[in-house]
């Protein structure tokens, strides 16, 4: 038989290249980061033009109003990277080509994390620039943009990974996206119902970490707790890491 091999054993680099190719060759995953970019910068323009800030808001907080929607987009991206494969049955081709399912999940995680981190970072920096251009001299504090923008980017990447885990567990796009949006929005929506516990319920959510990082006036200790921005972000990263480990365990055991 003729050989078409360029290398003997399939390594993680091959799996990563395959997952990267998949992500940019379907419209849904190709467009999500762009939508995310438009959301972050679009809100900055809107807030800058309408001056819709609280007096005690920072320019950073105002111009990153869209970060919350970007986070939702990130979770959708994470879901779509894997759920479409289960929906179409392509996952069988994937696991036949790469029987090491943990490696497949890890490669998808790298793609999601890198794309979401980069998109969110660029989006946040641009949004902050827009806000600074439009709001400087209006009497708002500017806020500490660095290293907050890095934290925002990490937070979006972590939420994307949470979406990836959920998509792989539920194996259904709509179900996973709905659940993911619930996970992101419900803690702050229903937080007030928990009374004194609100600080814990809402404060431990990915949304709270983002609000703290953007230093918006919404992030008061009464609603999101007194845990600092960086510990909150670490908590979100712990959620994602735990979810991914559990997902890897499940995906390796489950029939496809």
């Amino acid at each position: 038989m003729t050989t078409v091999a360029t290398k003997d054993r399939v390594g993680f680099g091959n799996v990563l290249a395959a997952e990267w190719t998949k992500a940019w060759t379907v419209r849904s995953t190709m467009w999500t980061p762009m939508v995310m970019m438009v959301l972050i910068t679009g809100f900055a323009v809107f807030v800058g033009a309408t001056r819709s800030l609280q007096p005690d808001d920072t320019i950073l907080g105002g111009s990153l109003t869209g970060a919350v929607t970007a986070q939702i987009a990130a979770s959708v991206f994470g879901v779509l990277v894997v759920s479409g494969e289960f929906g179409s049955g392509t996952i069988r081709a994937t696991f036949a080509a790469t029987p090491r399912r943990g490696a497949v999940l890890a490669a998808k995680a790298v793609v999601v994390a890198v794309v979401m981190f980069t998109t969110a970072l660029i989006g946040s920096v641009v949004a902050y620039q827009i806000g600074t251009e439009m709001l400087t001299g209006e009497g708002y504090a500017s806020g500490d943009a660095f290293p907050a923008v890095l934290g925002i980017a990490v937070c979006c990447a972590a939420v994307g990974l949470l979406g990836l885990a959920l998509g792989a567990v539920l194996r259904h796009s709509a179900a996973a996206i709905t659940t993911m949006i619930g996970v992101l929005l419900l803690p702050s929506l229903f937080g007030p119902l928990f009374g004194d516990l609100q600080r814990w319920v809402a404060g431990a959510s990915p949304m709270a970490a983002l609000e703290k990082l953007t230093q918006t006036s919404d992030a008061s200790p009464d609603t999101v707790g007194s845990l600092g921005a960086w510990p909150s972000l670490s908590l979100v990263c712990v959620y994602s890491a735990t979810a991914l480990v559990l997902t890897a365990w499940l995906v390796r055991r489950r029939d496809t």
Partner: protein
Amino acid sequence: MIEAMDLTKSYGGRPAVDRLSFRVRPGAVTGFLGPNGAGKSTTMRLILGLDAPTGGRVMINGRPYGALPAPLREVGALLDAKAVHSGRSAYHHLLWLARSNGLARRRVDEVLERVGLASVARKRTRGFSLGMGQRLGLAAALLGDPGILILDEPVNGLDTEGIRWIRTLLKGLAAEGRTVLLSSHLMSEMELTADHLIVIGRGRLLADTTMRDFIDRNSRAVTLVRTPDTARLRTALEERGALVHPHEAGAWLVSGLTAATIGKIATEQRIELHELAPRTSSLEEVYTQMTEAAVEYRASGEGSVPRIRAETMS
């Protein structure tokens, strides 16, 4: 070489594949036959490591599938032609597959050319017909130039020319020394393509033998006769214990007597014969007869409502 040893897979306590042992050898097209729900697709998924066996094991060239260093270079599989993300082009579908196993990009163009999809390679597969989907699935199976091919119903949805093309392709691949495992519901096609047969029913092995041997062993001797004097011949033959059934265009099928005996009886009784031809059974006839006992989806009574078991996996 694919080797299954006591391979078993149960879903909710009911075995879909039941202590199945067989070998699929190189250099031949091996037909994989069985009624719907007999466990063919499950067996194929077990071979590819997509489902984990409840018991036993299956090896590819002496190793479990999961231990192959570059699976696509050893095994090419077509399980479901529709299992492709419909928003991705044929080219990109093959491209990610190639990258996953470190195959050269030119292989993508080569296999697209080989299956006749080069002109639609950049189109999203959403608009593909079932036949085009099968060709894409075959391209994916051939991508790594593997020594083993596993194809589940590859001729589904293909036109006559396409079916003929697959037949030639598979026979050619086997002639090159590759192992080809093929399932199909088209018995006439299977009879033309396969050299060897593995037949299963209710997850169990019913036969593992050559095509010729399978047909010879399981055929009933049947002779086709044609005569202007039907009533007399029928009576004469039935008196000697034969079973006589009407066949198409005024001919009759006689079983239980050899052609020589029928000829002799006709001569003795001075009955004119227009045709006297021993018939070899087709694969379809032999297969139908053999698997009747193992059929799970049998039409029940006059209403012909399929009695489908609720727990059967699709």
